[in-house]
């Protein structure tokens, strides 16, 4: 129980820090730092999605960039048509309303995750990793050769999409929006983990034969988790496109899938705030060392190596100890 309380305090510190740093930046007049914090929040959101599949369900998806990219292209394409006043397809018009874009992004990434999951969850281990990677690569090469929406040049979003009551062009307000969505996602994750569904999912990760022997079919539970996971990562993709006002095939590249996995491993697989801490470390390294040397990923790699070798529970595991399941 000591561990649980320590993790609770640590989580509070992590979340408050993510709020406090941009707040300080706002007062100090450093909009760049606010944007960095927004990037952390959105990457964390994408990783919360992956953490459901990977952390709770033990499904090592090496293709979550697919959903991230689908979300990004939803935002880009809908905004593109809203801007040009042309219909998307079948007479449907584009939109610059984030709420609509998010709904479309989540629905579409959920749908694709259902198809990918239904086909790949019959395998496990290295085969599952490779199949999820293959699907993401299909998406990557599809967008690369999609001239209608910029092909390899990507698709710019000229005017950031709108959210009721928020001026999305102001960095602080955009940050609050991303931070709010991240908090909701963290609550969803925590509730999911504590629920009957979470109990079944984590049991299947540890011992699928036992779960089946008490009457819980592993496939259905894993597929459901995979779809929810893809939806959250898709939502993050839509928000990331709006933050950078740009969407491109790079969002679907395998390196993006790898980054999401790295974020979770750094933070601690399956831990509630691992995505936030991991994303902060990643963006921190990128910013601190990226300006100084092109080889910042080398240093990140060393940190990752250290975590994998000496702190299997990630940084959160290192500080708060092992996780208990009462």
């Amino acid at each position, binding site marked *: 129980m000591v561990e649980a309380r320590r993790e609770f305090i640590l989580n509070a510190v992590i979340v408050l820090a993510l709020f406090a740093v941009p707040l300080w930046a706002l007062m100090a007049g450093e909009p760049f730092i606010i944007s960095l914090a927004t990037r952390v929040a959105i990457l964390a959101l994408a990783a919360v999605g992956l953490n459901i599949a990977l952390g709770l369900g033990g499904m090592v998806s090496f293709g979550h960039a697919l959903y991230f990219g689908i979300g990004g292209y939803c935002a880009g394409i809908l905004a593109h048509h809203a801007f040009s006043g042309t219909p998307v397809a079948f007479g449907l018009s584009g939109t610059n309303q984030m709420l609509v874009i998010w709904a479309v992004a989540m629905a579409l990434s959920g749908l694709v995750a259902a198809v990918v999951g239904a086909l790949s969850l019959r395998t496990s281990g290295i085969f599952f990793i490779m199949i999820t990677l293959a699907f993401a690569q299909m998406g990557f090469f599809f967008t690369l050769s999609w001239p209608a929406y910029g092909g390899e040049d990507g698709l710019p979003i000229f005017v950031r999409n709108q959210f009721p009551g928020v001026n999305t062009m102001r960095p602080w307000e955009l940050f609050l929006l991303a931070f709010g969505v991240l908090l909701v996602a963290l609550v969803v994750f925590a*509730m*999911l983990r*504590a*629920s*009957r*569904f*979470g*109990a*079944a999912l*984590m*049991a299947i990760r*540890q*011992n699928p*034969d*036992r*779960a*089946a*022997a*008490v*009457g*819980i*079919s*592993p496939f259905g*539970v894993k597929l*459901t988790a995979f779809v929810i996971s893809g939806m959250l990562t898709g939502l993050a993709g839509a928000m990331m496109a709006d933050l950078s006002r740009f969407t491109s095939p790079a969002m679907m590249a395998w390196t993006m899938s790898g980054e999401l996995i790295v974020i979770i491993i750094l933070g601690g697989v399956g831990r509630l705030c691992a995505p936030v801490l991991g994303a902060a470390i990643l963006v921190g390294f990128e910013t601190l060392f990226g300006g100084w040397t092109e080889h910042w990923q080398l240093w990140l790699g060393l940190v990752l190596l250290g975590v994998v070798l000496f702190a299997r529970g990630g940084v959160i595991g290192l500080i708060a100890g092992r*996780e*208990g*399941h*009462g």
Partner: protein
Amino acid sequence: MDSAVLELEGLCKAFGALKATDDVSLTLQPGEIHALIGPNGAGKTTLMAQISGAQAPDAGVIRFRGQDVTGLSVAQRARLGLGRSFQISSLIPEYSARRNVMLALQARQGHSYRFLWPVRHDRSLTGPARAILDRVGLGPRASVPAGVLAHGERRLLEIAIALALEPACFLLDEPMAGMGTEGVGRLVAFLRDLKQEAPILLVEHDMDAVFALADRVSVLVYGRIIATGTVGEIRANPEVRRAYLGDEEPAA
């Protein structure tokens, strides 16, 4: 014989040239303990795997409460009331004993797609889990993760999980394996009570326990059932003694 809870008819399963299960038919009647014995490699584990649904037979039919379940998955059969325990303890290692039992209870209730209410405040799970753990004598160890329980305690937790399923029959695969004399004695008394709730198909190596418990015994040798009968009949059967028990009278 149509009152049988579990009925195997002409079950066959081969791995290449090896006939692991060779035309096996047996029934499990209400209120009985039917023990399945046989030397190592006789095909007991393969037979249990086919009954539980982990392996598909090449031929034959498995009927459970009158329904043909031959084509159903492990989980589907479990939901119909086929409760099994594993030969090698198969638990959720990071979950406490209590959470292991609660998982079985939630599966029994059929509600694993609930996303909001936290399980640890779910009285329909925590209450019965406590009662079941007390019943098998694991009450004081309820909060200990299954992965760090002692061997004998894990065997008991296997039983507790099977109990939580309130099955129509129990498939117990060597429940006594690796238990001390005292533990075996307690478990024998427990199983004698348990058969009042649901019949038990018992695979067991401990002959003392089998002869003390079983209402009927089937002897499996090289995938075939060479004899089925009461303990007395099996002990007196010359073919069984030759093939399995050895010529000496086994210790009673």
